[in-house]
């Protein structure tokens, strides 16, 4: 039996990321992991909702939040999810170059999102003196949004490691599942952001 897993268009399976046992396991494992992550974020959301008005005389959500920046961030992250879909589409067509291109764009959009977030936090700290320690609201806000940001950082590191490692190798049955699981994780981060956008920012602006 040969163990050459590299792909060529003629022998390529329907979906290279799920053609091996390992690939299937990875994908399934990540799905379960995301189930746990959902509970994790649900608990952070719950904590935030309980504490969002506990400002201890400090800045409130209405004082702080502005929609422009957050809207930009939402667009960046949602688009990056879309570009990762393109990347996986090209993976299934065995077009390595295009896949890498779209993954590169995904990474850039993710970095853009992070930059905005860092700017946002810096803005709150310098202009409003609103920190992690100011009030229970501050702690809950930075923890929830910060944990999401941490997930973005982790996702980006994952993506960049994958891209660098496999830049010269092309697609094969060993690394295809890795790209695919990354994409799934990245969508999850995106979904969490949609909830943050709604629960933290939109609800914070009105109430």
């Amino acid at each position, binding site marked *: 039996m040969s163990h050459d897993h590299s792909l060529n268009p003629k022998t390529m399976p329907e979906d290279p990321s799920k053609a091996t046992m390992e690939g299937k396991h990875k994908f*399934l494992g990540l799905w379960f992991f995301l189930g746990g992550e959902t509970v994790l974020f649900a608990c952070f959301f719950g904590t935030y909702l309980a504490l969002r008005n506990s*400002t201890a005389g400090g800045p409130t959500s209405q004082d702080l939040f502005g929609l422009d920046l957050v809207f930009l961030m939402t667009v960046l992250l949602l688009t990056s999810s879309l570009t990762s879909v393109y990347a996986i589409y090209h993976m299934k067509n065995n077009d390595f170059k295009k896949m890498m291109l779209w993954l590169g764009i995904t990474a850039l959009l993710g970095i853009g999102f992070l930059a905005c977030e860092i700017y946002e936090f810096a803005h709150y700290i310098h202009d409003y003196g609103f920190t992690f320690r100011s009030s229970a609201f501050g702690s*809950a806000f930075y923890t929830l949004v910060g944990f999401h940001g941490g997930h973005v950082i982790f996702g980006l590191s994952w993506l960049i490691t994958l891209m660098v490692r496999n830049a010269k190798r092309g697609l094969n049955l060993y690394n295809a599942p890795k790209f695919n699981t990354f994409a799934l994780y990245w969508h999850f981060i995106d979904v969490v952001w949609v909830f943050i956008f709604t629960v933290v920012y939109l609800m914070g602006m009105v109430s």
Partner: protein
Amino acid sequence: MSNAATQKRAFSAVLWDYLTTVDHKKVGILYLMGGGFFFLLGGLEALIIRIQLIKPENDFITAGLYNEMITMHGTTMIFLAATPLLFGLMNYIMPLQIGARDVAFPFLNALGFWLFFSGGILLNCSWFLGGAPDAGWTAYAPLSIQSPGHGTDFYVMGLQLSGAGTLMSGINFLVTIVAMRAPGMTYMRMPLFTWTTFVTSVLTLFAFPALTVGLFLLMFDRMFGSAFFDVALGGNSVIWQHLFWIFGHPEVYILILPVFGVFSEVLPTFSKKRLFGYSAMVFATFLIAFLGFMVWAHHMFTVGLGPVANSIFAVATMAIAVPTGIKIFNWLFTMWGGSIVINSAMLWALAFIPSFTIGGMTGVMLGSNVADYQYHDSYFVVAHFHYVIVGGVVFGLFAACHYWWPKMFGRILHEGMGKLAFWTFFIGFHLTFFIQHFLGLMGMPRRYWVFLENQGLDTGNLISTIGAFFMTIGTIVFLINIVYTAVKGEKAPADPWDARTLEWTIPSPPPFYNFKQMPLVRGLDPLWIEKTEGNGKMTPAEPLDEIHMPNGSILPLIMTAGFFIASFGFIYQTDHKAWLIALYAGMAIAIGCMVIRSLKDDLGFHISKEELEREAD
């Protein structure tokens, strides 16, 4: 001399093998050894607590040390003894029961073990570094926020590490069961222990993140000055209680469901009958797990959530008694009319049924929110949860040890000593805890260092302590049994109990690849089917071919060491910023290992067909 040298080399080779292993059976044994060690430690702490309470106004230990003792006893027993012992069993047995060669992610499996173990060691380091945590195993805020010294910090970091390990194992088991069952092993043909492993893993997956979040909040408040539980800045300490019990109640089912699985294997085997009401058993397991997430506030009846919330949670709590009752009756019906063999494993199983039922009954009493105002934080609660945890989980662990020991270690535990250990432990257990119901009803509060003379509590406490010594003796006899069996025990055949499931179709102990050829499963209790309708052997589902196996790796251990070092950094950076170096260095090691892991291809290796043919059947 040369003999000693080879022996030494052999020892270091075995050590290296275990440090780098990713084999689910070896990881399982590591879990059993680690969990066993912490079980003895927790037992010692329990004994010290009971000695302090042997007579009124005793001063065997100081009040502060007493608080540390109860905290560490509870924390150790739940997180470091019971959970890992069960995970060890699941690790070893479940893949064998479904006809798999390993778990889905062997590397993560090893990592999970090392994280659990290092978390336990970290927690216990606190004894030597200025004092153990002392805010109870529940670590309620604001007590845990104000607890001085670093004890509670060790609690936070230790549980964070071991919790991460447990979560990983949960995911691993889920994928294994979903994706790696042998041909013909449909879901409704899975042995009950595999089913309960599955449901337990689901609970782990959805419950542990709540603890993770709670611990993060506690960590941020204690180490980084946030204000989650600081009322002066708008914080709210009840949030901790919610998060803790959203995790905590499912956790008690993480403990009990696997042993339900154990009893559902032991009882049919030694009654020579199939499990009564198999599908009802599966269904009840799911129902318990589902309801288990709906009842956490029954631990918070006296917090003041209001009568509506309390009533809803009370009803949900009592509802759990229904699926639990289904199980009790199914076990009884399994034995009904069977030809029952009474050996050590069976004794533990028989003792479990009434003991656990008493615990379930007091549970329903506690679940009545009105009455709970009287019971809450009294010795009645202590009696309740020990009836379910010792009478349920610990009895189950003993039964499982006797049942699967031959499979795991190739030798049968000595029956005489097994029975002696059982009777001393069983009597000791009821002596210790039955009387505590009444102590509680008479007003003895839990977690108090001393009680006063002549309040009707003296005799009860004395009896309780005597019982604890009985249990200690039982445990020691069991340990002696282990040593004796290792040296002189009777060698076990592949199927010493005339059992029914797949793990008994392969040699004891199994070869490292478990199954030479995947077995073809023809129904529930596959081995029993072949015994009654076939030739007593499994039909292979595939021709003999080379087997793909994963490589061992030292990375899980190094990665864990990184997290371990970083934890010290987190804990001590509040005293001196230089400790941040440890924090960053530790994280760098851990992340470095992750990067190595993802950069290095790990394709595993193959055992050739010739090699397999050479191995005698």
